[in-house]
Structures are given as structure tokens and as C-alpha cells.
């Protein structure tokens, strides 16, 4: 039996798709959200330090499952590897309602003005497709505000002298400082830096009918026991469902976006939870599967008019895969720094986001989320063997006496860092899987080195007896990961981008991509608030131009 026609199908109920579903449903459009995962409650997540979204040596707690969803990873020497979803090379993002926002650390950054004008600011960069966004910070500002208030952000960035202007303060105050914060704040000030409380999508006080953070150590990588972490699964998606206009279908694996002979999109073919192939027809389709899966779906949607996949006339779909080159340092102290007060990350600086010597861009630096013991067990420390009595003594001495300062380096987009569909390997449902290949830009390596040295300086000033800088960012590694972005670039020129400034695919007037894929550059920040703000902005335009079913918008 054919499914009832709807106005819009949204593929993916994560940071982008959740917002879009809510905006469209509230505006009166009938919406179906196809989500490949399940809807977890706070009680579905065991506090398991070996099986969660961050440390997944025994698997991902929120999917995708390790058996049915392989990808192919091509290393720097051309070797092909079948990658499982709990391996680093997979570039995983959670498969569940809320997507990454169910289990993220929840830093809620607005990009800076320069982050939207990287090419104008720094000029062309050799080996990179660095470009300006077609929109500016000012275009996004009202929607950042909307995201902050609707989804809920706590923190206080008024001491961040580098931030772009905001019209309205954050809705919630920051959580009281933990011990790391108390040590790092005066140290940063002594160095002439500008520390402030990180904006977080986390209730510091009761907000939106949900409780405040109880400050446990099980935060980044886990769902929140008291539902204080604000994701799309406990904010906009319930709102969308309450309108009565939105249906959320779980366990649905999108196969392809369907098109007609006129080159317009007619719906989505997907496998439902019983593995039956279904076709949901719709007036418009929004792809929000995050950078890897969105690109894969477009590339898998081949037809006579679109032999290379949708939006891929000029071979830009899947290109410029980026994430963040995470770097930083650990400081080892002579006294306890651990106070068991979650989430851990609390203080940041934006002094090194731009204008650094010798490389383009930069990134924020912040203290890390609480480290569970296994996460410290593999730490490479010069002079301390990985095993044996000395390693045990190191753990005993420093588990409670270490501070990590980390930061995401803004990456230079590389055209050859890409998502393709593999010609041979198929997933459990018979759909060709994503094939990831390419490398980072040298600039990322330089940036990582620089930021790591600054993290060391900050830790030393805070009293660290010893610091160890991380040096794992190399040119040969491929970026992506949870901060994956860039594969369906937004731009004004159809020849060098995939979607227009309103996230509509250039040559298909009823197909949209609304998630991190459209980011031209990914900032030196966790990208989620920008994904949400841009989803609000794109939905706003979509609703305004909506002329009813079958209308040409």
C-alpha cells in the first residue's frame, strides 16, 4: 500500500534535521522524519566507560551497530580497509533520534565573523579549496539566538573579547566553576589571555521543563541521566511531534532520493524497520544525515538525469570532507586537580582563533570533559613505558592530578578529502557504502602544533610540573569524525558548490541539504550550534517560499 503523500521528508533526526522538522511542522507542513536509529531515553544508556559514543572499544551505545553498517576507508598508501562503526577511521556520528546531540559534550559555539570569510581574511591557500561562506555572521546571528533560546544554552561569554556581537545574552548562567576552572582562570589572566565560561547546550538551572545538570562525570559520550543536556531529541523534535503534523519513523534506512522525468524530487525510498522497501512521496526532501551519510545518499541517488548522483553535476558532492584537527596538551600536577564535578569542560579562550603566526586560522582552547580511567591508561608520556609497574604508578599518581587542555583547529578544506560510494561493498540492506579517502592540509598540522604549545604554556602557568603536548595530527590522516562537515558545500556558484545559500541543491529546486555538510569551513569550534542556527535560517526561508503542495517555490 502506498504511503500517504506528505509535504516534506526529512532524512535524519539529528542537529539539523530535528530543527527543520520542527520549523516545517509548526508552519503547518506535513512532515515525515526518517531516522535510521532509535529513540533512547536517559535510562537506556548504561554508564559504561568501554561502550559509549566516545570510548567505543566494545561498541557504540547509540549506533550505528558495528555489524550492518560498514564503510570503506582508504589509507594514505591506497590500502583499502573495511571499517566498523566503532573504529576511528569510520568517522562515526551517532545513529539515533537527536543524532550526536543526545550524547555530545554540548559546547555551543557561535562562529566568529572571520570564520565565514576565511578566504577574504587570509587569501587563497595552496592545496586547499578555502572559500568564504555565501552568508555572513550577521545573516546567522538571529538564528544563533533562536537556537540558544529554543534549545537552551548556559554559559557566559561576556568576557570573551573576541566574540562576534550578540544582541541577547545566553538564557542560562554558567555552572559554578570546578577546580580546573579555578586553577586555569587566574593562570590565563596572568598570561594576558581572556578566559570565560564555555557556552553549553546544558541546563545549568531548570529550563524548558527539564532539570538542571547534576554534575556527574558521565557526560560527553553518554546521554544525560537527568535529561539536562539539550539536544534536538528533547527539545525541537517533541515540539514537532506535538503539532500533529510530524511523524517520526525509526529504524528507517534511506536508500535513495527519488526523482521524476522533469528532474524534480518526488520522495525517498527507504527500508523500514522490517526491512521492507518503502517509498514515501513528498513535495520536498530535506537531507540531514550529516556529512558522510548525506553525501552518500545523494551519490546513491542516480537516475538518467543525474547519472553521477543528485547535486553532483560538477563533482562536488562528497568533496572537502573536514572535521577538526584536535590538539592540546596534558599537564601533570603535584596536587589533586580532579574534583569529580562534571561535565568537566568549563573554561575556554578564543585568543588563538585567528591572527596566529605562520598558519591560517586557529582554534579555541578549553579544558576537557572528565576523563574516565581507561582514557588515561593509553596516554603516551615520554619516559613512561606503556605497561608494567611504572605505568601503574603513573596512573595511581596522576589520575587525579592531570588537566587536559584541548582545542579544535580550523581545517583547510582539501578537495581530495572525500566521501564516495564504494563500487563493491554494500551494507546489510544492499546499499553501496561510503568510501572515505584523502588527507589533511599541512596547515592543520602547523595549527595543531601551535595550539598544543599554547595549551602547554597555559598549563605550566597554572602550576603543572610537567606537560606533554599531543602530536597525533598528521597530514596523512583523514579528518571527519563527529564534527564532520563540508561535503555539500554552500555557495553562489553552482560549478563550485552543491547547495545555494538557502541550502537548496543547485539544480533540483525541491531538494535541500541541511546539516554540517553545507559548511564551507568549519570554524575553530565545535560546529553544532552553527548547524542548528543554519537549519533555523534555511527552514525560515523554506517556509517563507512555501506555496503549498505541488507549488513551485
Amino acid at each position, binding site marked *: 500500500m502506498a504511503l500517504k503523500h506528505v509535504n516534506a521528508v526529512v532524512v535524519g533526526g539529528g542537529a539539523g534535521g530535528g530543527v527543520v522538522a520542527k520549523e516545517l511542522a509548526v508552519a503547518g507542513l506535513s512532515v515525515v522524519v526518517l531516522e535510521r536509529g532509535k529513540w533512547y531515553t536517559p535510562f537506556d544508556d548504561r554508564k559504561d566507560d568501554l561502550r559509549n559514543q566516545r570510548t567505543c572499544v*566494545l561498541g557504540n551505545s547509540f549506533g550505528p551497530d558495528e555489524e550492518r553498517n560498514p564503510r570503506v576507508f582508504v589509507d594514505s598508501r591506497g590500502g583499502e580497509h573495511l571499517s566498523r562503526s566503532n573504529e576511528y577511521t569510520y568517522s562515526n556520528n551517532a545513529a539515533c533520534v537527536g543524532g550526536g546531540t543526545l550524547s555530545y559534550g554540548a559546547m555551543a559555539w557561535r562562529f566568529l565573523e572571520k570564520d565565514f570569510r576565511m578566504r577574504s581574511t587570509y587569501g587563497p591557500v595552496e592545496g586547499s579549496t578555502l572559500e568564504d561562506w555565501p552568508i555572513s555572521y550577521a545573516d546567522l546571528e538571529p538564528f544563533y539566538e533562536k537556537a540558544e533560546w529554543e534549545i537552551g544554552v548556559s554559559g557566559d561569554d561576556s568576557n570573551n573579547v573576541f566574540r562576534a556581537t550578540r544582541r541577547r545574552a545566553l538564557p542560562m548562567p554558567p555552572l559554578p566553576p570546578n577546580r580546573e576552572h579555578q586553577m586555569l582562570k587566574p593562570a590565563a589572566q596572568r598570561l594576558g589571555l581572556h578566559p570565560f565560561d564555555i557556552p553549553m547546550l546544558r541546563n545549568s538551572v531548570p529550563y524548558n521543563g527539564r532539570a538542571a545538570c547534576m*554534575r556527574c562525570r558521565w557526560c560527553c559520550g553518554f546521554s544525560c541521566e537527568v535529561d539536562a543536556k539539550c539536544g534536538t531529541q528533547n527539545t525541537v523534535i517533541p515540539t514537532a511531534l506535538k503539532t500533529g503534523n510530524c511523524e517520526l519513523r525509526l529504524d528507517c534506512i534511506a536508500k535513495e532520493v527519488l526523482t521524476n522525468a522533469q528532474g524534480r524530487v518526488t520522495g525517498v525510498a527507504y527500508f523500514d524497520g522490517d526491512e521492507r522497501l518503502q517509498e514515501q512521496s513528498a513535495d520536498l526532501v530535506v537531507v540531514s544525515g550529516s556529512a558522510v551519510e548525506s553525501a552518500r545518499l545523494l551519490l546513491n541517488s542516480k537516475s538518467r538525469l543525474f547519472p553521477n548522483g543528485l547535486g553532483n553535476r560538477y563533482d562536488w558532492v562528497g568533496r572537502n570532507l573536514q572535521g577538526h584537527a584536535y590538539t592540546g596538551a596534558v599537564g601533570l600536577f603535584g596536587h589533586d586537580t580532579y574534583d*569529580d564535578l562534571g561535565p568537566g569542560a568549563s573554561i575556554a579562550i578564543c585568543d588563538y582563533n585567528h591572527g596566529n603566526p605562520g598558519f591560517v586560522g586557529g582554534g579555541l582552547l578549553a579544558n576537557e570533559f572528565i576523563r574516565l580511567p581507561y582514557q588515561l*591508561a*593509553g596516554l603516551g608520556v615520554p619516559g613512561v613505558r606503556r*605497561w608494567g609497574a611504572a605505568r601503574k604508578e603513573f596512573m*595511581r599518581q596522576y589520575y587525579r592530578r592531570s588537566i587536559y587542555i584541548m582545542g579544535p583547529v580550523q581545517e583547510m578544506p582539501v578537495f581530495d578529502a572525500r566521501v564516495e560510494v564504494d563500487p563493491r561493498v554494500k551494507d546489510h540492506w544492499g546499499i553501496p557504502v561510503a568510501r572515505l579517502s584523502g588527507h589533511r592540509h599541512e596547515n592543520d598540522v602547523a595549527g595543531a602544533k601551535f595550539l598544543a604549545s599554547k595549551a602547554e604554556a597555559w598549563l605550566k602557568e597554572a602550576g603543572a610540573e610537567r606537560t606533554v603536548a599531543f602530536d597525533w595530527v598528521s597530514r596523512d590522516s583523514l579528518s571527519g569524525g563527529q564534527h564532520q562537515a563540508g561535503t555539500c558545500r554552500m555557495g553562489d556558484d553552482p560549478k563550485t558548490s552543491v547547495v545555494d545559500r538557502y541550502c537548496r541543491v543547485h539544480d533540483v529546486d525541491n531538494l535541500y541539504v541541511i546539516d554540517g555538510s553545507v559548511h564551507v569551513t568549519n570554524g575553530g569550534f565545535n560546529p553544532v550550534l552553527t548547524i542548528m542556527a543554519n537549519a533555523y535560517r534555511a527552514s525560515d526561508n523554506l517556509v517563507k517560499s512555501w506555496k503549498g503542495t505541488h507549488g513551485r517555490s
Partner: protein
Amino acid sequence: MCEQIIPADQDPGAAWAGVVNYIDRQLCGPLRRLRETYRAGIAAVEESSGRLHAKSFADLNSQKQIEFLRGMETGTASGEAWKKIASAEFFGLVIDHTMQGFYGDPRHGGNRDGVSWKMLGLPYPPIRGRQKYDLTKL
């Protein structure tokens, strides 16, 4: 081998904490794809140890065991059997799994009684607010 990776001192080591139990359980579960690797690796350790010392690895004294493992770590361990799997690779795997078994959640079969968490001074239970109330006294 695990006991040399995390030896007992004033706190219990990997053996007491049940790390081998952890590894066994994972090899029947999420890590079952590594069964062959473990079989080949353990066989290689035994062959190599037999040739060097005419003894099983487990029967070597502590000093000799550490020397042997250093050889594995640096890839200088001798033996035909290491052609199947590189000694450094296998040892790296065992180190990682030992850390998981010792420092990870007891529900997976290791870290008996939360021994590593006690050692690190990490408060248990893991969630603030849980088990703080004695319901029998209500």
C-alpha cells in the same frame, strides 16, 4: 602476561582483577573477530619462549618475563610463529585489552570489586545521588 602489564604492588594487579576473564568474555562477544589473532599470538609466545628458555612463558621468572615482553614490544622476539602476527602488534593489543579489563567497568568481567577505581580514588557509585539513600530505613 597481563600481570606483567599491570603487576600487583600495594594494589592488586591484572590477574586478581580478572583481566583474563575480561578478555575471554570479549573474545566471545564484541571482540570475537580477534579470536584467531589471540590463538596465533599465544601460540607464538609459547613457541618463542620454548625455544629461548625451554619453558612455557608462564613458568619464567618475573625478570625473564619482562625481558621477553620487551623483546615482543620492540619486535626483536624471535620465532617462526611471529610471521603470522607481528609480536609488537599482538603485544599492543594485549596491553590495550589489559587496560580495558583493569580500568574499565566491572560489568565486563574485569576490574573486580572496582579495584582500579579504588586505587585511583575515584568515588563509587558512579552516579551522584544513586544509592545514597538507605531505603530499608524509610
